[in-house]
């Protein structure tokens, strides 16, 4: 009986082998953790007709979802061959060694069965034991998040796909404000024509920051791909279900006719989109929430506090600088609540955030808080604490800054503080100033400026007038001017002596030489005879008893003199 069955089996295998039908099942990985997704691929090749859908039994400890089917038909040298692929997503729900049983498919009246597959399921990270879900989480749903791989929209065996898109999130069950890294990958093994149009998902209900891009070479099932990876940090802002919309990408592939797996679809333009990702945002627990908590969620936070000065005078402000670093979005890092330090008054802070670090998101936000000590003395500024929620440990963590010492020197306030209780508040504002002072509006009047410019204006005027006067004086010293003056004086002269004196002056200017005191003979050579006679007559009339005012003589002398003075050009 056994021999007969064995013979039949061999015969069937031979027939199948002779026909080239191959039915193979394969897992994307043989080891995974609870909650992680594993791809189960069932491939039928060599069938001449369309097969019925395979019968996949339920598997204990594994939830299964059908992801899609594809068929690839090729003709080479007149021989037609086809390949059908069925893809399932398996999600183990319990740890241990699980077995995927043999799966059957009927083709052309024959039934083919795959080999069983082993899957080793371990414990997911961050989980010591599969204990109860965190409080507030709806029952019946898996509470544990973990890396999940999303299938591309275009199902098929990877080596048949020239381009692929896929995405994943670091955590599908984050807490409000917790960092979720969304990774989008674009793989292509063919040349692309032109650029790639990339449309990221809109950040609805999320705060979003880019974490950069990277390029690398990866191998998928023995096929090399060029991979472009875009990482984005998302921070959910409210609890409840949240959907990250698909990422869309379109590109144009170049034809590669040497690739036997290549099939040209249309003009080579490929439009792809990832599946939307459902997040279940968990609310922060209320139990154990410290008073200094104000919404920050993350891991490995650092708190630093320092003073701009450690010694000041009473009434002077000092800046307290508090820096908080961690994997939380800066908009969700709020002002730290200061403890009630006696004798110190605080004011509104000024916040600034540094550019966050990439590729692992880490942001630093600094708060500068003005403090004004209200009395002199030494202040111990301690107990400055700040809290955050650690989603890994699922507990609140409180950080405390190192204590700071502030020395305040005071004038009169220092002595007063010794006599009163240390906690007696002192007004940091200076007191009023009694009395009334005069308005200073007059000081900005235009008249003041004019008054200050006045001496310079006066000086300028004096200089100008003086120069003009000098010019005038100089103009009076010319020969022509002197002759004119002499002519006027000649007209007004009353005596022959005066006329004689003016005659000498005028004729000296005319001749350009001194004439007074020259001998008579020399005078006759220079001047005209008539003029010399008149001069002699005038000289003699000085001693004459008739006097030297004879009008007739004066007129004749005057006429002659004026004639002589006006005759010719000046030298």
């Amino acid at each position: 009986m056994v021999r007969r069955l064995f013979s039949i089996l061999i015969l069937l295998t031979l027939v199948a082998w002779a026909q080239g039908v191959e039915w193979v099942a394969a897992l994307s990985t043989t080891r995974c953790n609870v909650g992680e997704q594993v791809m189960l691929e069932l491939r039928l090749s060599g069938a001449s007709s369309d097969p019925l859908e395979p019968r996949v039994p339920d598997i204990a400890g594994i939830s299964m979802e059908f992801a899609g089917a594809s068929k690839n038909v090729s003709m080479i040298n007149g021989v037609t061959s086809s390949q059908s692929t069925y893809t399932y997503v398996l999600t183990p729900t319990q740890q241990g060694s699980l077995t995927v049983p043999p799966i059957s498919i009927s083709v052309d009246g024959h039934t083919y069965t795959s080999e069983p597959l082993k899957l080793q399921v371990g414990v997911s990270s961050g989980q010591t034991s599969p204990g109860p879900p965190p409080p507030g989480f709806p029952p019946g749903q898996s509470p544990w998040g973990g890396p999940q791989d999303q299938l591309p929209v275009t199902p098929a065996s990877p080596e048949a796909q020239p381009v692929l898109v896929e995405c994943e999130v670091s955590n599908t069950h984050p807490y409000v404000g917790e960092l979720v890294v969304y990774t989008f990958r674009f793989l292509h093994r063919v040349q692309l024509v032109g650029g790639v149009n990339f449309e990221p998902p809109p950040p609805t209900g999320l705060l979003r920051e880019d974490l950069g891009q990277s390029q690398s070479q990866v191998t998928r099932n023995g096929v090399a791909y060029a991979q472009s990876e875009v990482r984005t940090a998302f921070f959910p802002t409210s609890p409840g279900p949240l959907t990250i919309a698909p990422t869309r990408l379109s590109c144009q592939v170049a034809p590669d006719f040497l690739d036997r797996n290549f099939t040209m679809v249309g003009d080579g333009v490929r439009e792809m989109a990832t599946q939307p990702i459902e997040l279940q945002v968990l609310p922060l627990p209320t139990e154990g929430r410290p008073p200094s908590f104000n919404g920050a969620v993350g891991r490995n936070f650092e708190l630093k506090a320092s003073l701009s000065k450690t010694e000041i005078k009473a009434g002077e402000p000092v800046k307290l600088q508090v820096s908080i670093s961690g994997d939380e979005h800066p908009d969700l890092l709020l002002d730290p609540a200061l403890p009630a330090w006696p004798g110190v008054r605080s004011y509104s802070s000024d916040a600034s955030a540094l550019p966050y670090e990439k590729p692992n998101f880490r942001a630093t936000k600094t708060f500068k808080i003005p403090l004004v000590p209200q009395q002199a003395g030494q202040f111990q500024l301690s107990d400055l604490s700040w809290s955050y929620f650690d989603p890994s440990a699922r507990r609140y963590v409180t950080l405390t800054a190192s204590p700071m010492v502030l020395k305040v020197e005071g004038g009169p306030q220092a002595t007063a503080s010794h006599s009163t209780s240390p906690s007696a508040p002192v007004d940091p504002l200076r007191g009023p100033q009694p009395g009334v002072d005069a308005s200073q509006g007059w000081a900005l009047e235009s008249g003041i400026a004019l008054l200050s410019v006045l001496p310079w204006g006066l000086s300028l005027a004096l200089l100008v007038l003086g120069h003009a006067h000098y010019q005038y004086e100089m103009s009076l010293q010319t020969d022509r001017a002197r002759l004119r003056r002499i002519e006027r004086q000649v007209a007004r002269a009353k005596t022959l002596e005066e006329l004689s004196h003016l005659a000498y002056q005028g004729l000296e200017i005319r001749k350009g030489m001194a004439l007074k005191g020259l001998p008579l003979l020399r005078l006759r050579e220079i001047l005209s005879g008539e003029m010399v006679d008149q001069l002699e007559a005038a000289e003699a009339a000085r001693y004459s008893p008739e006097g030297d005012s004879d009008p007739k003589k004066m007129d004749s002398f005057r006429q002659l003199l004026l004639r002589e003075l006006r005759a010719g050009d000046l030298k």
Partner: protein
Amino acid sequence: MRWLLLLWLLLVVPGWSEKPNLDQLLQQKRWSEAVPLLEAQDRLNNNDSGARLYYNLGLCYQHLNNLGRARVYYQAALRRNPWNSSLQSNLALLKAGLTEPEPDESWTQTATHCAPPAVLAASMLIFSWSACGLAWMYRMRPRERWLWGGLGCFILAVISTCLWFAARLAPLQAVVQPETAFLMNGPGGEFTQSLNVHAGNLVEVVREQGDWAEVEALGKLRAWIRRDELMLVP
């Protein structure tokens, strides 16, 4: 006659009870009572009072937590007497408490209130006249000390004049009064919103158009704000 005397006593005697004067109110820290008296005195001076009155007004409003008005009067006092150390201290505390911190003022802004106007005017007059007189003396009888003295006085006169003009031509300043005021990109509510400013922020008024004023705020940001949300610095 008796009745007239009685009537006179009834009218005048109540006034005999000693009203606390302004200095007493300030010493007793009765800020809200002192404010009306100070403002009345300022109105009598045609909004051109001395630095001390504006300082006291600013102090009263600062104690009454009205940052907008306190800043207005402190700025007015600063223009008139920037050497007042109490004013400097209180103004620093007020600025530290502003919701919207302001950038540090530039050197040109500092020049507008580096010395009281009276000091600037006096130094301008004195140095100008001295320089001129020394120049004339040097002209009459050239002596080196008169030359250097005249040059020194001339330089000081130029500096004093520049600072005086800086104070004289200082831009019109105003202070935001409401807790939060919106800066708009145009003179109307239909324009898009720019930044916000808060009570106590100092702005420079560039021009006015209707109910709106174009201002320079928060370090050379030009925008429009409602005129009634500002109070000019006297």
